[in-house]
């Protein structure tokens, strides 16, 4: 008799299952528009040239070793990463009230932030503080906050499926009606999965309500640089909220903008009222880290720190990021014009209006199913496609397939 006889089979994570199914598909025309990883026009993963360069620097340096990092991570990484989010000359940084925790990817940063909030925010161990995530949102947001102990994870209105755009009044309405001190997870830019971001004016309204109603700001920034091609532009919302005096968290990922997916490079930037509050917050985050992974992995953080702190390498990195963002923009305009040329029913300007890696096509589950099973074009059930999966070689096939699915399936 086993202790684990009653352990049920859990269903697989959808996005990884999609890639698995794609791998097993024998159709030579297959296209993977699922998981969010950048691809070149050859459909291949891209190790950034600057990363290759820095890797060689690291491998060749005999003074480097594999010793433990401090619990909170590599200091040069933490500070240079926070500067990327908040700006080199951020007053908050100058006022010594910005700190950070190096974490395992954006996921790890969200998790450490969530664990801290559950213990220390809105009273101690207040697991009933509502956590609001956008409708829709990255599918792991729910699980991160729920696993951290929050009992009440709820959606806030965000995507208007009819309009295929932002439901601003719904969003503001949910902010107005949320219990005070609720936590809101905001996408800094390139909203996943919709690709639809609030405008500057929209963000200003959001900030005003959040400040007035004492709501907690938790930014998820996984695509800085990737959305517009410009780091500063993509950080506008985060920086604006800082100027508005919020104490807030920003979970940063360097998976996409550095292409360092499997090295798990993330940073939880903490903006506090003052240095003293910051110190105490970090000390408690240290305790959480110690019982989760003790200290973070060194390789990826070192790569990023070396790059960000060397002017030439930094410039080269920004150029690499621009390359990726520009290819995505090209695919967007290409896909839109092909669909319009085919006369595919519906409007397709949302393809170029949306921003970042993803597009919420508006395809319904039946149409998605058709695309997968009949055309071997793999995308999420929500209709989300990864623009990076498109290339000049497969875009005609994809456009035709979408056309077919829209015409044949309602």
């Amino acid at each position, binding site marked *: 008799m086993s202790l684990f006889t009653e352990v049920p089979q859990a269903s697989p994570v959808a996005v990884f299952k999609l890639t698995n199914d794609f791998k097993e598909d024998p159709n030579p025309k297959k296209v993977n528009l699922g998981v969010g990883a950048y691809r070149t026009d050859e459909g291949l993963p891209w190790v950034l040239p600057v990363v290759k360069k820095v890797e060689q620097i690291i491998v060749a340096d005999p003074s480097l070793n594999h010793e433990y990092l401090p619990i909170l991570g590599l200091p040069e990484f933490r500070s240079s990463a926070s500067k990327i989010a908040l700006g080199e000359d951020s007053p908050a940084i100058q006022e010594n009230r910005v700190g950070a925790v190096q974490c395992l990817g954006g996921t790890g940063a969200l998790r450490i932030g969530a664990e801290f909030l559950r213990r*220390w925010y809105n009273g*101690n161990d207040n697991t009933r503080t509502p956590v609001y995530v956008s409708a829709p949102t990255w599918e792991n947001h729910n699980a991160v906050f729920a696993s951290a102990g929050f009992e009440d994870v709820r959606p806030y209105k965000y995507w208007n499926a009819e309009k295929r755009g932002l439901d601003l009044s719904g969003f503001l309405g949910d902010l107005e009606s949320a219990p005070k001190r609720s936590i809101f997870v905001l996408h800094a830019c390139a909203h996943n999965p919709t690709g639809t971001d609030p405008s500057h004016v929209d963000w200003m309204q959001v900030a005003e309500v959040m400040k007035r109603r004492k709501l907690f700001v938790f930014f998820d920034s996984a695509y800085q640089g990737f959305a517009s091609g410009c780091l500063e532009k993509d950080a506008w919302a985060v920086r604006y909220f800082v100027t508005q005096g919020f104490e807030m968290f920003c979970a940063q990922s360097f998976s996409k903008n550095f292409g360092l997916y*499997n090295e798990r490079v993330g940073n939880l930037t903490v903006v506090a009222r003052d240095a003293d509050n910051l110190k105490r917050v970090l000390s*408690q985050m240290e305790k959480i880290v*110690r019982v*989760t992974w*003790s200290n973070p992995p060194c390789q990826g953080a070192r790569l990023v720190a070396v790059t960000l702190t060397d002017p030439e390498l930094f410039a080269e990195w920004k150029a690499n990021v621009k390359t990726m963002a520009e290819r995505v923009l090209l695919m967007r305009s290409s896909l839109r014009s092909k669909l319009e040329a085919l006369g595919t029913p519906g409007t397709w300007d949302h393809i170029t209006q949306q921003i970042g890696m993803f597009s919420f096509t508006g395809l319904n589950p039946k149409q998605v199913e058709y695309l997968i099973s009949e055309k071997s074009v793999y995308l999420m059930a929500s209709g989300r496609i990864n623009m990076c999966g498109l290339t000049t070689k497969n875009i005609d096939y994809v456009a035709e397939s979408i056309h077919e699915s829209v015409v044949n399936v309602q």
Partner: protein
Amino acid sequence: MALLKSSKIISTVGVYPSLGALSIRASSWWSEVQMGPPDPILGVSEAYKRDTNPKKINLGVGAYRDDQGKPFVLSCVRKAEAQIASKKMDKEYLAIGGLGDFNKACAKLALGDDNEVIKSGRNITVQTISGTGSLRIGANFLSRFHTEARDVYLPKPSWGNHTPIFRDAGMQLKAYTYYDPKTCGFDFQGALNDISKIPAKSVIMLHACAHNPTGVDPRPDQWKEIAELVKKRNLLVFFDMAYQGFASGDIDRDAWAVRYFIEQGHNILLSQSFAKNMGLYGERVGGFTVVCQDAEEAKRVESQLKILIRPIYSNPPMNGARIAATILNTPDLYKEWLGEVHGMANRIITMRELLVANLKKEGSTKNWQHVIDQIGMFCFTGLKPDQVERLTKEFSVYMTKDGRISMAGVTSANVGYLAQGIHTVTK
């Protein structure tokens, strides 16, 4: 002053000043957050760093040092790294459970190549964030699925981080007698007495080899009795193996207890770390294994482990696992690794002998045999907290309050000074 600052901010962003922004500066969400105490183990290294005494010695955290007191990057690791760099691999996400080549090799290393468990596919081994990450996943798994018994029994004493890990995961901590302070050795009878009273289905944590912090391991015949008693009591065994190869210098010998328990029918949980035996500390390389009834159960358990892992860090880091897998799967490198692990273990054994010899030379009349009898990176000196404090204050020798020293921090150059210090505070 505050007003001036605000207008500077405003001019940067071009937004009309909001009075609300000014008043909110007064209070903080975090006013009630207490200062967390420094970590008892990692805090020692931090205190050591601040000390300006040129003779200072860090015997705190268990990280291996060579005889010059320097971190040691294994030659097989450098070779593996060069090999990996030349292959120009991509950086795509690993699966949630990690690098397959690493997981297979990790299980083989612990259980033996020909182990029936591996052959029948009834183990699930996932890559984890070193030993800590492995223990945490295990603790989370137990908390969610082992609901009939919430108690985890740790040996007294155990690694300081065991308790907070299991507690944070929602388990309750209890202890069984292990260390005998009178002999600085294993209290075998005490352990058996306590284990015989542990309620059925409770979890019992066993250190596979090189017990941390005491360095005191059961002998094989003692392990046999423990295995039998644990089976009789129907306890769930969780092995923590952070030092395979490091204890005796021989990886099979160090895994003997783990393999014996499995042979005796215990379906164990196992945490492995490659921090010390491959010197991959900061790369965070580890494995978590559940030995299941059969392959079908292993699949179910695997699916649940992924559900636990995904909301913590999604998938594990590649670099260290790739290095470890390369070493374990390349015969030349594997052979070289075995030699280097043996070398590290030997240096430790030599330092133990030197320390005792030097203590005798200093004129100490105390019995220091335990320093030689204990095994692995750590030595439980038997020093009391006040003696430890003196050793730190007067000699700048840094160690944990429980009297534990990391032998890895001892060198031919500092062993004399260390003996002097220890003798001074114990005579």
